[in-house]
């Protein structure tokens, strides 16, 4: 008998399955597409050239997930990308290296004050990261209950028991110095341009640092709320060092493969080609799923890693949800802000690109390379999308995976991964047909060529992916890489729905575990871990209560 079904074999679905299987449950993962991975996917798109199709770097992956699931043994291998190069017009650049003193010298060319301020900024952001590190370890309702307990002793309405760890986290949060709390509120509400303006004067540095505030979001650095997206990217870490990024050997698909191996090592079964039609309900609780082919698979627990439009919309019959909560749930899921805004252009190239600012091969090619030469530039790119077009001169965040892992391309040749903004899900004029896709790809290459002349002649193959492709291939409605915009109205107890904010849904036995739950977004596995732990807690509670609402294994 299957104890638990997980819908979706993206990294979060696989993490949830691994945790449940590790606890001894009999778990089946159902994936609609022919391959696992969702948006963590690698593909040999052209012979000899391997791409991370969508997501491309790892930082948010929770250390507890890495070590509790023993992912290193299963193949996790993260090569650090230690530097960031921002090419600028006229052969100039802004280069940030691993060595802080060298970075100081690079930035001092633009502004001595900013070069110095960067130390202070990074220190403050490390402290922010450290705060977020703690918050990420607590389910939002439990944290709210713990804070409620402390502030007003009035959290009875939250049906959750507060663990000692979460009580500690709440205390930590409430005891923060006032200036840190103020910084936290600033980050939840301000635009990143304004937030960064508190430290820096030079436009190029502000633009460079603001890159993390727009990734995956239909926001300009000047849009209020973008500072939170910045914070979201600063809470990542590699081995305890915040704000580090790594490239998984073999591309991000290898991350999914690694987690899948961990899950399988504990006995989880992963079925591809298995689209789920709806959640099966019996006795007013989830009892399994009905597959698209009509097959039924029964289980006491169903977890969905899909976006809310699917999990709370398509998979649920509103009539099935107890207490008449179904209609509101489905309606709110339909209004979930989750339009795609980013495209991916993956290039197979005949040799290393020669950036005008640093033409020879060197360490800069093994780091991130970002085209964001100024705040106006990025804002204009955003304007194009605001009115329904793709950016004519886009923001591009690049890496050259084959420099970090030579197995990604044939010897001497390379793959160039370009994450591009902005590309809206729906175009105002026309649709994302072949012509529009190629025009988008051309805009990217044209922009690249402004900084790396001759790159157009190095291109052997080109893969252009836009939000409808993300939707079709990774199964994310709208193609939003975070399963929903990261903004205050969609965070904490509102993510993805006030009635389903802590992994539980109003339908007993049915849980959410994807990027649309709290702290989701990015290859983190954090929400899935907390969701799985919540399921296991609920099963234990039901067990000790003598066969209450949940079915124990």
């Amino acid at each position: 008998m299957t104890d638990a079904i997980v819908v979706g074999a993206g990294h979060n679905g696989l993490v949830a399955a691994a945790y449940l299987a590790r606890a001894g449950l009999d778990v089946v993962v159902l994936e609609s597409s022919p391959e696992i991975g969702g948006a963590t996917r690698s593909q040999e798109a052209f012979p000899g050239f391997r791409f991370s199709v969508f997501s491309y770097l790892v930082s948010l992956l929770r250390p507890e997930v890495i070590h509790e699931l023993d992912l290193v043994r299963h193949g996790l291998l993260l090569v650090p990308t230690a530097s960031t190069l921002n090419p600028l017009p006229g052969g100039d650049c802004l280069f940030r290296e691993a060595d802080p003193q060298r970075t100081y010298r690079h930035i001092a060319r633009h502004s001595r004050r900013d070069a110095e301020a960067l130390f202070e900024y990074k220190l403050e952001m490390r402290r922010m990261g450290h705060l977020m590190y703690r918050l990420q370890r607590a389910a939002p309702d439990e944290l709210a209950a713990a804070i409620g307990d402390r502030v007003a002793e009035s959290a009875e309405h939250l049906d959750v028991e507060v663990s000692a760890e979460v009580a500690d986290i709440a205390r930590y949060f409430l005891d923060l110095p006032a200036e840190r709390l103020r910084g936290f509120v600033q980050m939840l509400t301000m635009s990143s341009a304004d937030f960064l303006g508190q430290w820096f004067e030079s436009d190029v540095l502000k633009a460079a640092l603001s890159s993390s505030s727009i990734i995956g979001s239909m926001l300009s650095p000047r849009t209020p709320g973008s500072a939170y997206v910045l914070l979201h990217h600063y809470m990542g870490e590699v081995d305890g060092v915040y704000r580090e990024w790594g490239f998984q050997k073999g591309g991000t698909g290898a991350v999914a493969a690694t987690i899948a191996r961990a899950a399988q090592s504990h006995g989880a079964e992963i079925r591809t080609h298995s689209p789920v039609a709806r959640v099966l309900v019996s006795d007013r609780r989830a009892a399994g799923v009905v597959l698209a082919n009509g097959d039924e698979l029964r289980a006491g627990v169903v977890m969905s890693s899909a976006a809310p439009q699917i999990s709370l919309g398509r998979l649920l019959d509103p009539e099935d949800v107890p207490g008449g909560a179904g209609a509101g749930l489905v309606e709110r899921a339909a209004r979930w802000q989750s339009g795609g805004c980013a495209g991916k252009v993956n290039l197979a190239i005949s040799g290393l690109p020669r950036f005008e600012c640093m033409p020879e091969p060197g360490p800069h090619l093994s780091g991130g390379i970002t085209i964001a030469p100024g705040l106006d530039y990025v804002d204009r790119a955003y304007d194009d999308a605001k009115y329904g077009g793709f950016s004519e001169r886009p923001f591009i965040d690049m890496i050259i995976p084959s420099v970090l892992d030579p197995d990604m391309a044939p010897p001497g040749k390379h793959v160039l991964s370009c994450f591009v903004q902005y590309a809206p899900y729906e175009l105002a004029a026309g649709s994302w047909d072949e012509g529009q896709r190629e025009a988008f790809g051309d805009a990217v290459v044209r922009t690249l060529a402004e900084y790396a002349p001759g790159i157009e002649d190095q291109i052997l193959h080109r893969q252009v992916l836009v939000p409808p492709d993300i939707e079709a291939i990774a199964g994310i409605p709208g193609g939003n890489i975070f399963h929903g915009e990261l903004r205050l109205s969609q965070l904490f107890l509102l993510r993805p729905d006030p009635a389903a904010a802590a992994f539980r849904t109003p339908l007993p036995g049915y849980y959410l575990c994807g990027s649309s739950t709290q702290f989701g977004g990015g290859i983190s596995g954090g929400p899935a871990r907390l969701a799985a732990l919540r399921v296991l807690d609920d099963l234990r509670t039901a067990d000790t209560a003598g066969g209450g609402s949940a079915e124990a294994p």
Partner: protein
Amino acid sequence: MPRRAPQGTQAVQRALGLLRSFTPEAPEHRLSELAAAHGLHPSTAHRLLGVLEAEGLIGRSPDSQAYRWMPGAPGAGDAAPSPRYNGLRPLEPLRTPFHRRTAALCESGAWRDWSGYTCVETYEPTPEREYWAVRNAAGLIDVSPLFKYEITGADAVRLLDRMMTRDFSKSQTGRVMYTSWCNEDGHLLQDGNVQRLARERFLVSAAEPCLRWFEDCGWGMDVEVRDVSEEIGVLALQGPRARAVAEAATTGLDFGAMRYFDLAAGEVGSGAGGAPVTVTRTGYTGDLGYEFWVAAEHAEALWDALVEAGRDHGLLPAGLLALDMVRVEAGLVLIDVDYVSASHAEIEVLKATPAEAGLGFTVKLDKQADFVGRRALVLERDRGPAWAMVGLEVDWFELERLWSEIDLRPQVVGQPASRKPTPVFAPGGWQVGQCTSRFFSPLLKKYVGLATVHADAAALGTELDVEVAVGYGRRRARARVVRRPFFNPARKTAVDPMPGVDE
């Protein structure tokens, strides 16, 4: 418009360029070679060199066939005789035969002394990329400062069998043997590799000088021991792409057929007529790799061929910091770090037998030949070694726990391997040994270390405490005795190794 130098200036520039070619390391050059190297017509070069010679800035070789560096000539890169040394030249750091190449690439300016040689510690300001190149692509490491001894003669095998703990009656031409050698008390003097180049010709590589010891052991034998340390340059090419790079950089070698610890001779470069090179499938990284042994005068040609071939495979030159990180992952002991050679251990307790240094597998007590230290090692076998070399591992959650005490995330990543010994304790109890090499492996995401502990604390799975620095404090981290090597990819020993063999 490109600015052209006025005529006179150009001649001065050319002359100075020629003059700079003459260094103590490269004292002699032929006319044709100089003309080619500087892109000059031979007659122009001849004219300029004639002036330099007339001015006493360069000289001629004894056979007058070549121009020669003049000690003390201004601008020739030479240090003037020093009054401090009574007119003798001060003892300068030695340069390996690859120095001109490594120096040109050493952006960090971080150099370290190794047996008197100036060696690159890290080419870039931080060693991370060099470390990852070894694990993920290929790294090129200049290990020329090793001492090298050629042992030749009818009694060569007899001498080695007498000195070494391994059984050299079983050694084969074309193979390398890793061995220990001990003093009469069975205490380790050194460990090193022995190449059998021919029936009666061996090459021993060692970290410390041992000519006298070898000669004394061979007293009365028909054997010659020659110190060839400065004649041979050694490059270690290590990493998953090592084979592809080695193949592209050499001729006449069958890398598919070459087994772990095999040895073969070939030529540098892709065409015939390249410099002769000996290749061994050995290394100090625990990865797929080869070491190239080349006459010093061909060293730069070898370097250039490997770097050129490595361009398409992500090859990076790697310094000693990266080497030290990967060798700890490989669980390989280092003399005078993980054990003290009996030749300079002042007190008994510092000395170690091969078994105590984790090298028990190199001791063949049942071999035919008697060997130095055998009697003591037989006794040790009977009563059991007192100490053992173990691998220690501290897991991530333990690191998180310790650092959370001072409200920090573990500050362990990005630090080079430490060689400062730190105490190892029974859990919550007395000291049972010391951890001598350790670092946080970014590959394994664990803190790993080599430790010498009491033999009864050495069983796999034993829990021990190791002292670690946490902020300003000292804490005991709970560690576990684990198998060495910590990292042991299949490609290291795979037959016919191909990229991706470990996937």
